[in-house]
């Protein structure tokens, strides 16, 4: 089984494929998709209503990524960029569905729309309701070391391993701290 991470030549091949795909070679893009589509479907399952929906979202991601391929700068792994597009797309679809369901529900509270609403967690509700303002103040309340790691992860887009290398610690350690930081944010958002 091919490892997606370590072998250097695999990373190089990804890059080569991207170059070829950017030049319009659909087979090269197809190869990239083949490598990462199943992983993407797995990632999207929690955001989808069922596995079929996850597959649909993954398909949409493939199309969207193809259209945006010229924006991929190669600074990070292709898979990271690809997954990010998928997650953002799934969240956006989910959010739109939630809003539509709310509108329908308010128009007809007894109608079937409510049953179709994907379950909305308190975190999602908070983010939906107050956009990023609440999130900003929750971030502000975090210790600086959390902010630093969150910034490296979500502003600079580094992987845990890269953050670990930069901070002189391990990827696993970074992952734990990220988890804690996000837990704190989550609790804060849920309280709000």
């Amino acid at each position: 089984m091919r490892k997606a991470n370590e072998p250097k030549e695999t990373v190089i091949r990804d890059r080569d494929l991207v170059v070829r795909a950017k030049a319009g070679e659909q087979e090269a893009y197809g190869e990239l998709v083949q490598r990462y589509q199943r992983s993407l479907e797995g990632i999207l399952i929690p955001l989808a209503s069922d596995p079929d929906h996850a597959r649909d979202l993954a398909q949409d991601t493939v199309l969207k990524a193809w259209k945006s391929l010229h924006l991929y700068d190669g600074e990070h792994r292709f898979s990271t960029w690809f997954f990010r597009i998928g997650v953002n797309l799934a969240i956006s679809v989910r959010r739109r569905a939630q809003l539509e369901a709310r509108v329908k529900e308010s128009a007809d509270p007894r109608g079937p729309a409510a049953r179709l609403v994907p379950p909305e967690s308190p975190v999602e509700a908070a983010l939906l309701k107050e956009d990023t303002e609440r999130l900003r103040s929750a971030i502000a309340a975090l210790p600086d070391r959390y902010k630093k790691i969150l910034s490296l992860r979500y502003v600079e887009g580094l992987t845990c391993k890269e953050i670990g290398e930069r901070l002189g610690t391990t990827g696993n350690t970074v992952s734990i701290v990220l988890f804690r930081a996000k837990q704190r944010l989550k609790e804060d958002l849920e309280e709000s």
Partner: protein
Amino acid sequence: MSPQELQQRLDLLLDGELSEEEAIAFSQTVQDDPGLRDLVRDHLVLSSALESVSPSAFAPEVLPPFRWWPRVAATAAAAVLVAAAFLFGRTLSDAADGADSRPVVPVARAGDVIDASGSLREVRVGDARLRVRPGGRISVVSEVPAAVALELGSVEVASASADARVDVEGFGKAFVQGDAALLLGPDTSRRGGYLMVTSFAGAVRVVDGEFTDGIEPGEPRLFDGGGPRLAGEVLARMSELEGDEGLMVLTTSQHTELMAALDQDKEQLQVRVADLLAANERLALEFEAMQRRDPKRKLSLREVLDSMAAIAERDGISSRTQASQWRRIRAVVRKYDRRPDEVVGAIEEILLAADATPVRRRLGMWCLSRVRSSRAIDMLMPYVDAPNLDLRVAAIEGLARQRNARCRDALSNAFQHDEALLARISAAGGLVSLGDYGAPLEWLLEEYRKRPRHPEHLRRRMLGRVAAAPLAQSKVADYIVDLCVSREAAPEQQREVIHLLARLGDDTARTTLEFLSEAAARPPLRALAARYLGRLDKEDR
């Protein structure tokens, strides 16, 4: 799968670090467990939201002057160190010396202060030192407990809710509650006593009486928990053991540690205090205390060094006296750190003269090792081949601490050819601090692994040298983490590592502590890491 493990797997998956097979297995696990699915969904949603937040949201907090009030107010119920007065030989007769002899009252907390003229002044943390005329008055009117250091004089506590009697003969402390007034009485004739006033809540008014001039302040500081009380007891004990000392300021965790050491013998307590003070960068300078006893005369740097050498020659330099020696050395170097050439010149003249005794020379090496300057390197170089081991090790250690590429060859030579373990440890540490993470670092780690062979102080020295560049090096981070998560490693070794991380205390060390508080092999280790982390965070607050 615990939430943390889930997060780790998810991060690996998102970072493309999982194989396809692992990714599918992870997805299946998540799909089969609604709880995990919800967790992953929330983390993905949050991640996506975090990506859309502007970078400025993640900037470290910079507190404007008063923004931290509410936060401090929240902890106002905790104890606050209000005042620490260090009374030296001053008499009322000095009071007639004119305007310059007015007392200085440092206000250590932000807030509004009404000074002696009755005007309201805005005070920032640590920057206000108000001179008060005899009979004047300072009112600290902030809403949070204020910290005011009284440098001279006696104090009476005037408050219905306070214990009104304070004995400043020897060590005195008062516990003030509520809106208390501290009245600085006219009696400044008492000598050599400490005064510690502790307030647990409320604003404080300070009314001064007759005073002479101000003495360089100690550093009042906000404590919580039982800090002030512990500090008082430690100070009292140190005062009893060593006589007058300058004001020592310790963090709460340090007090707690020192309290544990109070029942130990003097030597152990001194060593521990010296360690803590050095780490804390707040040191009572022995020679400053000497100055204070005779405030009209400033001691010159040469006099200070000469005094240090005299003490070293009298007591010898051994492991039993090393801590206090180090304390003196660090104090001197820190005091003159902006004038390295002056220090080096004085060290050369006083401690490294041609006819200097070996003790003086060794002391000289130690002092030089703490001064970063080109001239210090020139002076240390000739000793790296000295037949006398003490001198040689001191010189190599000195070069190692310079962190200067000029020293690389000499350090490399010592690392490869010197047979003395101490010399090699110093040389390897110096090379590591210069960025050589190859053989020197591996040798240090390997030697540390052979711990049963080496006495404890050598192991600590090795670990300390590993920490010369440690957490910036994934090899060291991996080593530390592996050591602590291993069930086979010796528990005391694991504890040492956690102590080291706590001492380093920087962001990376904290991050590692955070990880170990979850993942260390043994519950006591996890608890230790969590405790240290909590303390460090608390100190930040």
